[in-house]
Structures are given as C-alpha cells and as structure tokens.
C-alpha cells in the first residue's frame, strides 16, 4: 500500500515523575513489519501508547512524525493483548464498532467479507463469550482491518494464545496486514524472528537494531535462519539488563 507512511519516534518518557525510558529513536518502516522486542517493564507499551495517541498520562519529551508530514490522527488502528471486544455485541457488530462509534454508515458487505477472511462466517451472530480465545482475536483482527487504517499498532496481540493458534494468527495477520505499516510489540523472540522486516530489541540501555533473517515475511518457524535469529534475540534479551 503506497499510502502507508513510515514513522519516526524520538524522545524519552516519564509517568508521574518515574522515568520509563531515556531518549531513543525508533524508525518504523513504511509498509513493513517492525518488531519491538523486549522484556516486560522496559517501556515497549509506553512507546506504543504514545504512537497511538493514548499518552495523556505520559510525559513525552520528543516527537512523533510520519514520513508524509501529515498528522497521525485517524490513520492508526490498534490491536492489544486483550481483545477489548464488547461482550454485548455479536461478531458482526464488534467488527463494525468503529463506524458506529464515529457515527458513520456501516459497510455491511465489507464487514461480511472480513468475517469470511478471518474464517468466522459460521460464528457471525455469536457474542464474544461464546467464542474461544483464538476466535476472539480473529474478531479483533477483523475489527482492526475494518478500520482500513494504513498504520497498525499491535501490542502483544497473540501472547495469550496457545502455540498452534498463535502460529496460525501470525500467518493470518501477516497476510491481511500486507502493505500496511505495522509496529508489533512482543516479548516472544520467535514471533519477532518470524514476522520482523525490521527488528529492534529494547532494554534498559536503549534500542538495538538486529539484522533479521534474509527471507521475506512471514517466515517458516522452523527455518534455520529463523531459529538462529530467534536464538540470537533470546540471548540478547537474557544478557543485557
């Protein structure tokens, strides 16, 4: 997608006087998957919240800019670890919630197509409580796509799923988010090695760029270069503070 811009994040963050991270520069490549890997508590989610415009309680000294110079408002969609589905809405209405919340007309055909693409046609009228964890994340994925935004922020969206479903969801997301500028926050080295066009490891000393495997995403989880990268990432996570 040619209209997916690159993003540049610069700066430091404090929350209520507590420093979260020192000044850092993060470049998120246009139309590609940028993975931000780090242990819990290093401030990955803080970076993502600032990018998403959810940083009201965060003191950010720095800047966030898109490569096309335009504002980010209205060009971002977010998918978090918790699916944040509305328990009182069925699959269709959860996918269309963005339109409803903005007071727009709902493109029903588009919503149906997305339900089909994430493989939930048979569950169209079910409410979230009647779905499995994997199915719920599929709904969240379809909802993210329904927004049609060029930039997608993913905050550990697959971390609560079992290994099999997680691998399936990674493949589905890679296919459906193709061409979008994606920033994936994860603590799973394997996920970063499979999905990252660009990989950063974030720790207390800052951001470290890692050379990803040379094959295009999405990579097979058992390819030697993917496994080697996964090992390298895990070593880095363990060795540095």
């Amino acid at each position, binding site marked *: 997608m040619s209209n997916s811009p690159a993003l540049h994040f610069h700066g430091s963050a404090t929350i209520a006087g507590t420093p979260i991270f020192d000044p850092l520069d993060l470049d998120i490549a246009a139309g590609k998957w940028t993975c931000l890997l780090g242990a819990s508590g290093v401030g990955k989610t803080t970076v993502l919240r600032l990018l*998403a*415009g*959810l940083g009201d309680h965060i003191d950010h000294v720095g800047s966030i800019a898109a490569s096309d110079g335009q504002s980010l*408002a*209205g060009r*971002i*969609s*977010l998918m*978090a670890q*918790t699916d*944040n589905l*509305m*328990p*009182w809405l069925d699959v269709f209405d959860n996918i269309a*919630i*963005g339109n*409803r*919340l*903005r*007071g727009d007309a709902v493109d029903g055909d588009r919503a149906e197509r997305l339900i089909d693409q994430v493989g939930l046609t048979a569950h169209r009228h079910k*409410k979230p*409580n*009647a779905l499995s964890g994997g199915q719920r994340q599929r709904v969240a994925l379809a909802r993210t796509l329904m*927004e049609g935004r060029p930039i997608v922020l993913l905050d550990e969206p697959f971390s609560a799923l079992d290994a099999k479903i997680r691998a399936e969801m990674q493949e589905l997301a890679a296919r459906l988010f193709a061409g979008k500028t994606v920033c994936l926050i994860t603590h799973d080295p394997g996920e970063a090695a499979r999905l990252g066009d660009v990989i950063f490891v974030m720790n207390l000393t800052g951001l470290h760029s890692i050379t990803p495997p040379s094959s295009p995403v999405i990579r097979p989880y058992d390819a030697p270069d993917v496994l080697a990268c996964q090992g390298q990432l895990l070593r880095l996570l363990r060795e540095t503070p």
Partner: protein
Amino acid sequence: MRPMFWPVRDSFCGCFVKRHDARASHRRGDNANPVFMAYSCRFDRPACFILPSPARVGLALFGNFELIAHHASVTMAEVMIGLLLGTFLGVVTAISLALSPIARVVVRPMMVLSQALPVFALAPVLTLWLGYGLWPKIIMALLIIYFPVTSAFFDGLMQTPRGMLDQAKVMQARPWQIMRYIRIPAAIPALASGLRLAAVYAPIGAIIGEWVGASQGLGYLMLLANGRAKIDLMFAALIVLAVLTLLLHASVDRLCSYVVRRQQA
C-alpha cells in the same frame, strides 16, 4: 402493704430474682404491682391487642381480603410508578453526570446534601403541596430510590474497562457514541444492582407517604387498624406489604438477571 411504686433499686432486683414471687402475686390477682405488669409483658403471653396470635392475623387476613387487596393495589401502583419514574430520573442524571465534568462538580455535592435531608421529614410538605392523592406517595417512593439508582449507575458508567475506551479513542469515537455503544451497555450490571435495592426501598417511601396523609393504601389501612385497636388487621396488612415487597424484589431481581445474561450471551 406494698407501695404503689417500688424504689428503683428494688425493681431492678425484681427483674432478676423475683419472678417466682411475681407469679405468685399474679395468682393472687395482685395486678396493681407495676413490676408484675412489666413481667406479664415479658414472660406471659401478651394480650391480643399487643401481639395477636398468628391464627387471629390469618383470620383477619382472609376476613378482610377484599379490603386489604384494594389498599394493597393502591400502594403497589404508587410503588410501581415511583419505581419507574425514579429509575428514569436516576438513569438520566447518572448519564448527565458521566458526560459532563461540570455537572459532576455542581450536581454531585447537591445530591449528597439532599440525602442529608431525611425523606421522612419531606412527607408532610409533599402532602401539603400535592394533596392526599397518589402523587405525594409516588414522589416519596421516587425520592427514596433516586439516589441508590443514580449512584449505582453512575459508578458503573465511570468504571468502563480502560482497554475499551482506549480502543474507542484510537477509533476517534464521539463522546455520545462512546456513551451509547460502550459505557451504558458496560454499566447495565451496575444499574441492575441499583434497581434491586430500589425494589426494596420504594415501598418504604410509599408507606411513609401514606402514614402522613392518605385515604387509601396499606399504610393508611395500618394506621386506621391501629387506631381502632384492630391489631390483627394491622399485622395482616403488614404481612401483605412484606410479601408484596419480597415479590417485587424477586421479580426485579429475575428481570435484571435475565437482561444482564441476555446482554452478554
């Protein structure tokens, strides 16, 4: 001869050690003794004008069934209308408070202050202003449930899960749409808790209203029966009131549970 009124110290002793003597004085018909009179209330079966037997209450209930049913229907009408209006007003207030920080600063202290005024004290004023008909009782029921309904629903509206609100913000949702599609549905279980309380409180309001001035209703019937020493009828009306309140609470509880279950499944 014993004095008419015993010294305080003796009567205290009597409470604990002289029961046997009092029984004896009962047999002698020595009723002028005030300590005995206190005993008779405490240890012997009370007179039927103090506490009628269940059988007498039962007889009064069936013997005056139509009378009680008529007055019960009036009271329940007051309660139901008060419940509906109070719920409506409470819901509207809670939503306004949740939408507007200014309303929160201005209205909330006033609401708390209004709770410092006992509704009981307002009943005579309402009767003065609105007469002896249904309205003062409906307003009493409304006033007594307004605060619990508003408070419960408002708390629910302010505790929407953070992630849903974040999602809405990224989606550039409008405040009213967030209220309509997220905050109100998320607060329905809290509103249900408020309504369950309201179902128990509303009859209290209506009865107080009837005590202050009425020509119909269970509260009126109870006062009337009491005044004519028909304590069995008074108890019959009281039992009907309690049963109706329990039924109302059970129905509201069922309805709320059904709605909350339906909402999420």
